[in-house]
């Protein structure tokens, strides 16, 4: 089993290196360089050469890649062109905010999705299933920015229950943030719930028609006991992967949501840095998103292997 875990880990590291090369290569392939992109109308004379020597643009691409990735490993991404501050200092609070939004949405969304998914699965083709599945389908097909806009129109502009956009001091505590992010939380939870719900429902239906559930039913085991002792543990296992995927989507795909709600997270930061043509900052955030995505998936893989007795034994039979 250890061998498989290790293999997954090595794969993750390779993916990360590959992503780093792509992120670096794409910015290299752009016309001009980071300095001409950033300075725009002002890119001439001394200002340009000062910027270029500051970034070490006189060195070769390969040299700069190793330099950049080496320092990135130590958490040093250099300074932002626009903000004139260390990139790690800029990213840290934004990262925290994105995690707060993502986690709070996940805490609402995942349990809700699983409960609704189980209900829909157990009462398959009945009224409650139709309602739940119908809403899930809607949530999956309507883009999140439309949902966000509709929610803002209803609850912020018409009813004035919640703030439309996030307006917060930079050093706001979690308690200060939460009441201000109700709408983005609901939007994220809504979209996220749909995916997990559908997988859970399918998985529950699968399990319900399996031999061991039939057996238990025939033996006269009470339904409640079948559901909680026999069905759910095996039905919920496949949802771990989809939960992980959704979490990863949450952390990286919140870009749109953050932008719509003016939320000071990594998503709005990457959009701003692209507008500013602040390439060092763009590279750093892109890499951060990749790390988050890979990490969450890695954790999910580990969880599945550890929790699934069949996989566990098969793995140990295979690899010792």
């Amino acid at each position, binding site marked *: 089993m250890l061998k498989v875990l290790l293999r997954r880990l090595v794969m993750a590291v390779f993916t990360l290196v590959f992503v780093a090369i792509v992120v670096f290569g794409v910015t290299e392939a752009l*016309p001009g360089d980071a300095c001409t992109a950033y300075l725009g109308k002002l890119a001439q004379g001394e200002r340009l050469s000062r910027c270029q020597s500051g970034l070490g643009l006189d060195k070769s691409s390969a040299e700069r890649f190793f330099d950049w990735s080496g320092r990135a490993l130590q958490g040093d991404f250099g300074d932002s062109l626009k903000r004139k501050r260390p990139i790690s200092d*800029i990213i840290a609070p934004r990262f925290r905010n994105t995690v707060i939004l993502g986690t709070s949405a996940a805490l609402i969304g995942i349990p809700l999705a699983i409960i609704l998914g189980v209900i829909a699965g157990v009462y398959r083709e009945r009224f409650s299933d139709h309602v739940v599945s119908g809403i899930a389908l809607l949530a999956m097909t309507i883009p999140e920015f439309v949902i966000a806009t509709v929610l803002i129109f209803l609850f912020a502009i018409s009813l004035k229950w919640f703030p439309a*956009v996030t307006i917060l001091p*930079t*050093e706001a505590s979690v308690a200060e943030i939460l009441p201000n992010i109700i709408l983005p939380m609901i939007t994220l939870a809504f979209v996220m719930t749909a995916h997990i719900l559908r997988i859970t429902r399918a998985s529950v239906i699968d399990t319900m028609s399996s031999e061991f559930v039939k057996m238990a039913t025939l033996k006269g085991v009470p339904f409640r006991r079948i559901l909680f002792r026999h069905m759910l543990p095996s039905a919920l296992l496949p949802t771990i992967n989809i939960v992980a995927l959704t979490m990863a989507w949450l952390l990286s795909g919140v870009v749109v949501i953050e932008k719509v*709600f003016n939320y000071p997270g990594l998503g709005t930061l990457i959009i701003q840095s692209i507008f500013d043509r602040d390439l060092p900052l763009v590279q750093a955030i892109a890499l951060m998103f990749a790390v988050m995505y890979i990490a969450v998936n890695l954790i999910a893989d580990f969880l599945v292997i550890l929790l699934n007795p069949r996989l566990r034994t098969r793995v140990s039979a295979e690899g010792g």
Partner: protein
Amino acid sequence: MPSRSVKTAGLPYFRPIRLILAITLLLSLPVSVTHAGLLRLAYDAGFGGAESLDPYSPTRFYFTTLTLFDRLVQQNHEGGIDPGLATSWEVSDDARTWTFNLRPGVRFHSGKPLVAADVVYSIHHALDPERGSPVASTLAVIDRAEALDDLTVRFHLKSAHADLPLLLIDPRCGIIAENSAATIERTGDGTGPYKLLRNDPEGITLLIANPEYWQGPPRVERIEVVAIPDQVAQIQAMLSGQIDYLPSINRRQLKLFENNPDFIVQTIRTGHWPGMVMRTDQPPFDDVRVRKAMRLVIDRPNMIRLALGDGGGEPACDTPVWPGDPYYADMGCHRDIPAARALLEEAGYNDGIDVDLYTSSVEKLFISMAEVYQSQAAEAGIRVHIHQVPADGYWTDTWMQESFVSTRWNQRPADQILNEAFRSGASWNETYWSNPDFDHSLDMARKETDPVKRRSMYAKTQQILFDEGGAIIPFYLNINRVFSARISSLPSEKELFIEWRRVATQ
């Protein structure tokens, strides 16, 4: 009995209940509480947290520095100049020495009295090349400043300039305290109507009224400057009542606020202009007849209607000086297709002419303006080929490189824009125009101390530009701004930079 209460408090499930209660309470608080005496202004956090409270910094937090600092002189709504921290001023006959008398009894927010040494320090701070201040080029004519006594400052100029106060009304020329360069970017210690309570450029910056302000205390007690980078998010914040003012909205967004009793919309005229510029050093535009023909073909009101929509701008006659400027020359220009054809034939283009216009979506307006121009010019046999290049690198690889390109400038005083963009050899001379007559009359205008003569000289420079220059400036842009109806005394429509101390809320 005491033991029982202890036991209850210690019950494990009690804490979550209290937490839930607390959260419910927080959530049920109405969000858009409207406080009288509070003004909430959104700005775009354009420097992403690198905003500095030093009014001379290249990354100045302009929204805030405008209320924290005062200038020596201020602009009135008629385009003239009113006293500010200086009560009066005199100029020497050769226009090379200016003396300003300062207002007695003014104090900085820190309590320090304002003296001449502070003004001297501020000017030298602005001119310090190490600071890289964007006003340095505006003030470059100043050689040095000198304190004659506590309340008298003298400016020695490098060359004659009869309009020094016009340079000093630049909103960036705030007066800072002597030796405050190291701390000013965080303290914002000025003499202005508002004092800094908390500086948070990426969140909420708090300003509080200065009760001892020399022009009387402001009418609103607190200002919150709120960072909202996204324009759509700004609109939503405005619609839901989270902020009280939006400095600029486009025509489509205007419909959301017009005829809505919660909002007041103002349309203000500005001197911001987009344009298309020809390189006068390259064929075919090195021929003044071609340049003139290129400008004669434009139907300016029609271009405004098609490219901006009605009321989106005011027609311009290829002068960068706008009608709100005291030196604006009203020249009048009409479309004349036969005259344009005749000029082209005279220049040897009997079958019309092909020109390449390079433009980009770097500004939304560029493309539509180019397309309207293309169709208008076609009537005179000018075949405009539009080349749309990527927004990336437009300002480096295309602008000031190709011979016919789109451009845009923000409103600037006459002397500044004429010198920075049209004088021979100026670094932003995008038409590569070099005309000794023009340069000479600019110099003469600067020297002339008689205001009437000076005005006619600036008019002459604009006339030369209109007759021979390479810039097509079809219109000046109007700006639509929105106030919440809570604001009871609105600023004048002539104020591009609003004096917030005069504004009151309900």
